[in-house]
Structures are given as C-alpha cells and as structure tokens.
C-alpha cells in the first residue's frame, strides 16, 4: 500500500528536566501525534544523591538531617520512618505524650504536603492564584513548626524513643487557632475550585485508574483510595496512636484526577479533626524514652581514658542496630513510604532501602497518558503528586 505523501511522522517532544512546570527535575520524552499523546517515557535520576549509600555510613542520629531531603514537603514522615525502624528493631516503647505529639506533627505535615500539591496542580491547569493562597496557609504551618522544632522545613525533630524537645508554652492554643482558621480556608478552596466548570472539564475523566489496576501497579496513598479501595495504613497497621482518635478513611470511586483531588482535599479536613482531638487529649509525661540512650558502654573504653583526653573528638554514643531485617512503613501524604532495614550489630545499618511512594506511583504515568491530549499530561502528572527528591533520592 502506497504511503501517502502526507504520511504520519510522529513528533517527539522532550519536556526537559528543566521546565517551568514546577514538578522537579523530571524528564519526559513524549511522542505526539498532533495533539494526541502516543507514548511517554519518563527519565529519572536528575536528583539522585545516593541517600541509601550514605545511610550505610551514618548512625541514625547522624542520618536524620538527610531524611528530610527525600520528601522535602512532608518532612515529618521521613523522620518518623527513620526513627520507627530502629525503634521496632530495638523494641523501644515510645511514651504516650511523645506519640501524640508525633501524630500532631505528622498530620500538620500531611496538611502542608497536600497544600503544596494543590498549588502547582492548579497552576498546571492554569489558575495561578491558588498557588499564593496555599503558601499563605503553609506559612502558618511553618510558623508552628518553627516554634516547636526550630526549623521551618527540615526539622530534625524526631528521635529514637520520642521527640527531641517538648512543645513550647502556648503552642497548643496556636495550633487550635490554626485548625479553626484552616477549616474556613478549605471551604474557600471548595468554593473557588471544586465547582468551577472549567476545572471540572479539565480534570473529570482524565487519567482513570480502576481499582484492579491500582493494586496491580502497586500504587498507594490517595491514588489507591481514589480508585475505590479504602486502604489507609493508619488504620491497617495501627501505628503511633491513631487508634485513639476518631476519624474516617477518605476515598472515592471514580479513579480520575477529580477523585484524587477530592480525596486529598477531604484528607486535609480529616487531618484537622485528628489534630484537634490529639490536642485536646494531649497527656502529660515524658517526651522521650531515655532508655534508648542506654548505649553499650563497653566500646572505646581505652579511648575514654585519662591519657587520651585531648587527642581527638570522641565518637558520639550511638544506637546499636541488632542483626535483623525489618520493613516498616507509614502512610505518607503521597503514598506508602517504607524502609527496609538490615541491621548490622553496629551503629550503622547494613542496608537501608527506601520505598518511595512517588517512585512507585510514577510507573503508571506512561500508561495513563497513552490516549490523552498534550495538555492532560500535566494534569495527570500533577494528580499523581510526585516529588523528585524521593523519586530519585
């Protein structure tokens, strides 16, 4: 059959690692047929920093500042999981007060992460104003974090056995004020965005994932819950003290980008509920389990002698990881964040494997954009909610 003169040559467009779409350094090689997408190949690795290899040479307390750089928008979760692993290995109990404070911090971090997902998502669709509004709310969360932990973003707050320092005086009232304020703001977002016909047209029916497909691809987090599977690790694993609060799993059935948007928005309201309950019921008590500081004192006894006082820096006491393997996971805002930890009988882990939710969730992108238009790529990518820090780690 003679090929017509105007034969179809598919156009290959490179949406390079550096582009104004605010999704980090993700390179997409898109094969286009006019306006329709035929294929899409994501290329990762532009932000690879060797986090897993670095972990093999750091004690846990030394490694904690690194972990906040995986998912730099929901930092408490990365810290929580770094600390949960050794806690479970060494069978260390966390006092109740510390657990409640951890839950409050985690839920605040979840709200912050979903807020910063919403801004760029709307900016990709074209509405640039919500970007400014979410930063206004995020600044309040930053202020709360700064008062409690000392840093706005990279907190280094969690410790094995509890948290680093107790909450300052008056923090609880400020947090309750924030909760009340934020509920009004969520209503504002609903009014501005959720019923906007242009938004609905852009987002409804775009990037549909069925429940079966979601499980097959190994998705987690809001992507799974938006496809009709009410799976939330906070209810399944029952870690920290999520059992003691009354809250529901937010899920939707349709599996399109609108469903994911609705799931994340309602998760924010649920988080506020959890925070309010935790604040009201915050018990007294210690904020750190000091038993975890009972380290093996037999090491380095010679170097602690009188004669070697001024020779060099003494190594800081470290928590020993026993020679076991463990997989621990949390429900991060982007999905299931997990650590597979193989301990060596020393301060350094033998293998520290990170299971990033963004990496696993990104796999479905080429499948989803196959029959969509060029403009939908950004919508779908935005609704998957990836952050390159943890995808590449």
């Amino acid at each position: 059959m003679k090929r017509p003169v105007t034969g179809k040559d598919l156009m290959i467009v490179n949406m390079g690692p550096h582009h104004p779409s605010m999704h980090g350094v993700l390179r997409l090689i898109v094969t286009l047929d006019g306006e329709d997408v035929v294929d899409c190949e994501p290329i990762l690795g532009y932000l690879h920093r060797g986090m897993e290899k670095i972990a093999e040479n750091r004690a846990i307390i030394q490694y904690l500042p690194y972990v906040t750089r995986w998912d730099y928008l929901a930092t408490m979760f990365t810290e929580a999981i770094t600390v949960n692993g050794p806690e479970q290995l060494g069978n260390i109990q966390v006092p109740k007060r510390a657990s409640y404070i951890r839950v409050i911090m985690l839920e605040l971090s979840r709200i912050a992460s979903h807020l910063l997902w919403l801004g760029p998502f709307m900016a990709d669709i074209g509405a640039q104003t919500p970007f400014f509004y979410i930063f206004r709310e995020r600044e309040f969360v930053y202020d709360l974090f700064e008062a409690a932990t000392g840093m706005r973003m990279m907190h280094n707050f969690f410790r094995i056995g509890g948290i680093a320092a107790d909450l300052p005086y008056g923090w609880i009232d400020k947090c309750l004020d924030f909760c009340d304020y934020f509920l009004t703001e969520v209503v504002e977002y609903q009014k501005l965005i959720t019923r906007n016909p242009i938004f609905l047209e852009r987002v409804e029916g775009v990037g549909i994932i069925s429940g079966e497909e979601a499980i097959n691809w190994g998705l987690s987090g809001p992507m799974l819950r938006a496809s009709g599977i009410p799976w939330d690790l906070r209810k399944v694993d029952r870690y920290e003290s999520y059992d003691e609060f009354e809250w529901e799993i937010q899920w939707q059935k349709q599996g399109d980008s609108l469903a994911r948007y609705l799931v994340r928005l309602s998760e924010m309201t649920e988080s506020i509920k959890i925070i309010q309950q935790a604040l009201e019921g915050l018990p007294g008590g210690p904020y750190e389990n000091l038993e975890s500081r009972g380290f093996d004192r037999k090491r380095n006894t010679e170097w602690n002698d009188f004669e070697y006082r001024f020779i060099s820096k003494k190594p800081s006491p470290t928590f020993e990881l026993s020679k076991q393997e463990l997989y621990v996971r949390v429900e991060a805002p982007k999905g299931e964040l997990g650590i597979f930890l193989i301990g060596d009988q020393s301060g350094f882990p033998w293998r520290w494997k990170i299971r990033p939710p963004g990496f696993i969730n990104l796999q479905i992108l080429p499948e989803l954009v196959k029959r969509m238009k060029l403009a939908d790529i950004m919508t779908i990518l935005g609704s998957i909610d990836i952050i390159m820090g943890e995808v590449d780690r």
Partner: protein
Amino acid sequence: MIIYATEVQTINSFVRLESLKEVYGLIWIFVPIFSLILGIITGVLVIVWLEREISAGIQQRIGPEYAGPLGILQALADGTKLLFKEDLRPSRGNTPLFSIGPSIAVISILLSYSVLPFSNHLVLADLNIGIFLWIAISSIAPIGLLISGYGSNNKYSFLGGLRAAAQSISYEIPLTLCVLSISLLSNSLSTVDIVEAQSKYGFWGWNLWRQPIGFIIFLISSLAECERLPFDLPEAEEELIAGYQTEYSGIKFGLFYVASYLNLLISSLFVTVLYLGGWNISIPYVSILELFERDPIFGTTIGIFITLAKTYLFLFISIATRWTLPRLRMDQLLNLGWKFLLPISLGNLLLTTSFQLFSL
C-alpha cells in the same frame, strides 16, 4: 517680455507660501496620528501597571512599588530592559520571517485604532465601514503568530503558533456575528453611528440591554482573540514553555507583549463603543451634545474620560478573570468556539433580525 523685479518677488513669495502651506497640511495629518499613538502607548503602560496591581491584590501581595511613585513606571522599566537585551536569532530558523512575525501582529492591531471614537467625532478615520475594518485587519494577526512559530525552527513554537492560529480563527466568527447584530441595530457599520444610536435614553439606551447574549459572546470571543486566560493555551507556560514566543528575546518579545496588551485595549474599547454607549454620559436626560455645544474642549475631554472609564471597567473584568479561572484545553477551547458560541451567535443574529423586521 519685461518682468518687473517686484512682481517676480511677489510670485516667488507666493510660491513659497503655498509650499509651506502644503508642508503644514502634511504635518497636520501626522499630528492626530501621533497623538493617538501616544495615547495608545500610554494606555498600554497603564494596563500593564493595572494588571500587576490587580493581580497582586487578588493574590494578596503588593504589586510594583519601586519604579516610579506607586510603581507606575514599571512597564517603562520593563520595556527599557527589553531594549537592552541581546537580539537572539535561531541559527537555522527563517530569519526574515522570524523578524517580521511580531511586527505583523502589532501593526494589524495598531491599524484598528484608527476607527475608534474617543469622543464626539474625535475619531481618526470616520469611515462608513468602521467596525468592519477592525474585524478585517485584526484577522491578519494570526498570520503573524504563524510566521513567528514557523520561523523559530522549534517544535514548541510551531505547535504554539498552530494552536494560536486555530484559536484566533475559530473565535473570529462568533465575534463577527455579534458585531453584525449590533450593526443591524444601529443601521450602520460606522462606529460613530453606533455610539450615537445608543445616546437617546442614557443608561437604558445601551446596546447591552438590547443584546445581552451578544454581549456575553462578544466578551468571551474577545478574550479568546486576545489570547488571555482562560484561553491562553498558545502560551501555556507549563506545557509549551511560551508557545510561539519561546525563541524571542529582547524587543521582539517586547513587541509580542505589547501586542497582547494592545489587543486587550482595543477589545475593551470596542466593548464600550458597541455595547456600553461609547462617550455618552449615560445619565438619562443629560446629553453630552449640550456640553459639546457649550464648550467644545470641555465636552470632548469629558467624552474621552467617559470612554476610558467604561473601558477600564471591562479591563478590570478581564484581568480579574485571568487570575481566577483555570485554562481550557485545546480541544475544549475549539469545542466552545465552534459548537457552542457559533450556534448561539447565529441564533442571536436571527433574533435581532426578526425583531428589526417586526419593528419596522
């Protein structure tokens, strides 16, 4: 033949006076043109400043405040900066086309300003086919965009240029049909006649009340013609970097920028002329004609002010819309133009025609 010296001298001086008069006449043609262009450029500067202030207000931040008092000279500062930038030209692109593209877009819009009445008979060219001139000449702008997209030797620019051309063409038809309905109402294509037809009952004489559907369609179509959000897919930053403007730098990029705002200004001016009553005061029983007769300069100035005030109302609406609504996808955009606006504007035309027939 005896030629007396004095006669020669008078003949010579007479000739000199004539040529001087001709030169004077020639210069006098340019004065209104230049003053109009000066007014337009000032208008664009003001629009740029307005856009930044309004968007800052919507986004809860402060707009420009350092360049000049209250940041008024910000647009001028931006333009000067663009003048100083290096003029990049793609090495394998078509350089003549690359250079001409932005100019075509700007020139076609600038030409349309000649039929706009700013006040009572204060119009550069009182043509019988005023409105039609605008529609015809503004249709040349998509050619400029196509040329820029093609001449850039860049896939993104090409895609952007094609999209821009498709969008412009699809939204011209509803625009034209609305204008046609208006001219039916006023029995003339001349802009001055259209405004004068709205002057009788003050506020209630506006074409807005006689053509509500047409007004809305005209608003949407003119937003799409200007390529402003929610229709700015050709320059969608997230997807195509900057569409057909990607390869441009320096003052050529500035020309695109200016062309966009010029287009916006002329659309707003046409909205006031066609639907909001132009230079009429629009308070019932107060006619600007009396003011004009009493004191022409005062009346004219009041007319200009009223036109500008009504224009800025529409400008505010379009700027606020830009920063509120998300963007339409390309196929949804074309759907809206062809399958929704076109039938409705046809229906509007039909309605107007039947009312005109019956009222006769």
